[in-house]
């Protein structure tokens, strides 16, 4: 009996304390908590680390300008997914189960994002990916899933706009390797070029696949050469890209070579050799240093002030924008309800200035008009933004 009395006493005490602390917090206006799920540990830890720093800077900037919802601060709560699908599901559950987490920035890897976003969907929590670029992610008809980064194939849209305009290319050859990624980019390029083809401005003179792992491309390249292209766009990966460029030059294709963002890297330069690699182009997400917007400058200055240097990968800044847009939506709607937020993000957010440019979402939750840049391999084998 004595024991029960004691227990009762303790529970009353705990309850009282709880109510008291609640009262204190209410007086201080509780922060709005936004989750960040990312690879804080594991092979991609540097990505997660930078994403965490980006979100913290974004929150800091919001808080310095007075917070949201009339003075409530934004707080970032981290969950580590180690870039593993299994850990990703646990990290998602961790954030979902904390009732004060309003929405989540989640996550970097596509294969991690897929199961995690299913959980967020099930428990009705808005989640915005910042590095998951696989096309299929937004084609599952999820209601609460968005992303601020582009899709694997959005560089095709950029190519279709940029190359005819800047290179003056009229005869375009497109080569892919039938992998989901490369075919996606190639299809998107073709689709985006279609209006210009219909208008008779450009012509797709070659559109075909090569076999990944193949070493001899003399036959498809001879076919390409006979179509006299103004530009050759290869959307596949670097092992083939390097051989294609090398063999194309050998059989007398001298037109500009443009690779997708999986085609051109340091290995590409090594395999193709600097002589043949220099002057090759690449459609690629801008590195943070090359973001041209006023918001990016403010953000990167604050980031540099705190961490010494700006992020070295294109992706972390998308995490900052994911957090920014969540905070923006909460502030504008005055609500932390998932349905209200999802509805608002999908239908009302349009052209909101962010670190990575104007933010808006399509019906599927994809980012509208993701920025891409044309990079070129310079004399030293490094990559720089192409300026005409």
């Amino acid at each position, binding site marked *: 009996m004595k024991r029960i009395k004691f227990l009762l006493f303790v529970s009353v005490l705990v309850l009282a304390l709880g109510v008291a602390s609640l009262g204190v917090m209410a007086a201080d206006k509780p922060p709005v908590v936004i989750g960040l799920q990312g690879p804080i540990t594991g092979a991609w830890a540097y990505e997660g680390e930078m994403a965490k720093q980006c979100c913290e800077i974004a929150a800091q900037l919001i808080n310095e300008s007075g917070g949201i919802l009339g003075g409530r601060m934004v707080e970032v709560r981290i969950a580590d997914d180690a870039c593993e699908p299994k850990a990703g599901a646990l990290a998602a559950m961790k954030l979902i189960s904390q009732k004060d987490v309003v929405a989540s920035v989640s996550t970097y890897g596509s294969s991690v994002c897929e199961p995690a976003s299913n959980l967020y969907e099930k428990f009705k929590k808005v989640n915005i990916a910042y590095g998951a670029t696989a096309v299929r992610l937004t084609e599952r008809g999820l209601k609460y899933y968005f992303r601020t980064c582009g899709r694997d194939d959005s560089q095709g849209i950029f190519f279709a706009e940029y190359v005819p305009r800047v290179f003056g290319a009229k005869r375009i050859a497109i080569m892919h390797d039938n992998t989901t990624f490369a075919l996606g980019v190639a299809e998107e390029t073709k689709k985006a070029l279609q209006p210009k083809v219909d208008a008779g401005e450009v012509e797709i003179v070659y559109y075909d696949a090569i076999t990944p792992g193949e070493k001899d491309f*003399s036959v498809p390249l001879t076919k390409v050469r006979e179509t006299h292209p103004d530009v050759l766009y290869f959307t596949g990966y670097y092992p083939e890209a390097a051989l294609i460029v090398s063999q194309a030059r050998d059989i007398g294709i001298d037109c500009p070579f443009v690779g997708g963002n999986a085609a051109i890297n340091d290995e590409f330069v090594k395999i193709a050799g600097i002589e043949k690699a220099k002057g090759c182009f690449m459609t690629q997400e801008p590195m943070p240093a090359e973001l041209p917007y006023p918001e990016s400058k403010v953000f990167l200055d604050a980031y540099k002030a705190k961490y010494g240097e700006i992020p070295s990968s294109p992706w972390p800044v998308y995490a900052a924008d994911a957090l920014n847009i969540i905070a923006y939506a909460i502030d504008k709607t005055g609500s932390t309800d998932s349905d209200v937020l999802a509805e608002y993000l999908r239908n009302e957010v349009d052209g909101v200035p962010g670190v990575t440019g104007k933010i808006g979402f399509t019906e599927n939750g994809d980012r509208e008009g993701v920025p891409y840049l044309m990079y070129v391999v310079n004399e030293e084998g490094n990559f720089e933004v192409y300026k005409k």
Partner: protein
Amino acid sequence: MRIFLEQMLNGLTIGSFYALIALGYSMVYGVMKLINFAHGDLFALGSYLGFTLLVWGNAYVTSHVGLAGGMIAAMLIAAIGIGIAGIIIERIAYRPIYSVGRLPAVVSALGVSIFLENIIMVIWGPRYQAYPVSVVPTLRFEIGGIHVTLLQIVILILSFVLLAVLYYIIQKTTFGAAIRASALDRDTAALMGINIETIIFFIFALGPALGGTAGVMVGMYYRQISFTMGWNYGLKAFTATILGGIGNIPGAMLGGLLLGVFEMLGSAYISTAYKDVFVFLILILVLIFRPRGLLGEKVAEKV
């Protein structure tokens, strides 16, 4: 016509790789009645050996011996190295189980193949390696509208010289006659005073050496090598061997060259995506309609 000639040239170039590798299969099969499945990986090992030599000797090659010297040195050393590897493999993996029968030897060959592939991966890493540009001739020119690289011509000439020398050894010398005799009937050849041990030693050194040379050539030609490359080339060269008539030396040469040309013309005029389909379709057709191959002699089944 221009394109046809260009593709013929490309076809002959890769055909000569197939021919050089196919010789190794054919010689070993001829004498041992063993399909040496490790041969493709010996070829890959040769490619990596040449790669390492050229990377190490990069400065020396460019400043002292010149491109031609470097190329020949790399091929020679790779040939010797792979020849030795071939002998060692024969001692360790094949000799102890000859007496058991032919099937265990084939399984052992598959094991050696997997072993070599992984040893290459462990030593040189799983990533693609690239032959340095500075040690490979990069000159290219146009003859009557046909684009040719200097390297292509060098490779063609070198491999034809190698094929010719081997043809001479096998067909015109007493030692070649001994090899052919052993291929026809090992027991009778031994009774005639031919030292089978010497013959086996010779073919297990020479076959892999040719494969290793081809490895360096392929490395220079495409400049990109990977530890899994041996399997694909091995399979195609094996097909070439069947096409020419397994165990028959001139047949392997002819089969390799024909296969290269088929592969190129097929993918040029029918479809690029079906490139490998042509190769293995040929294998199936030959096996159905002419199992002894183009130049293979009809051998009565031993009962």
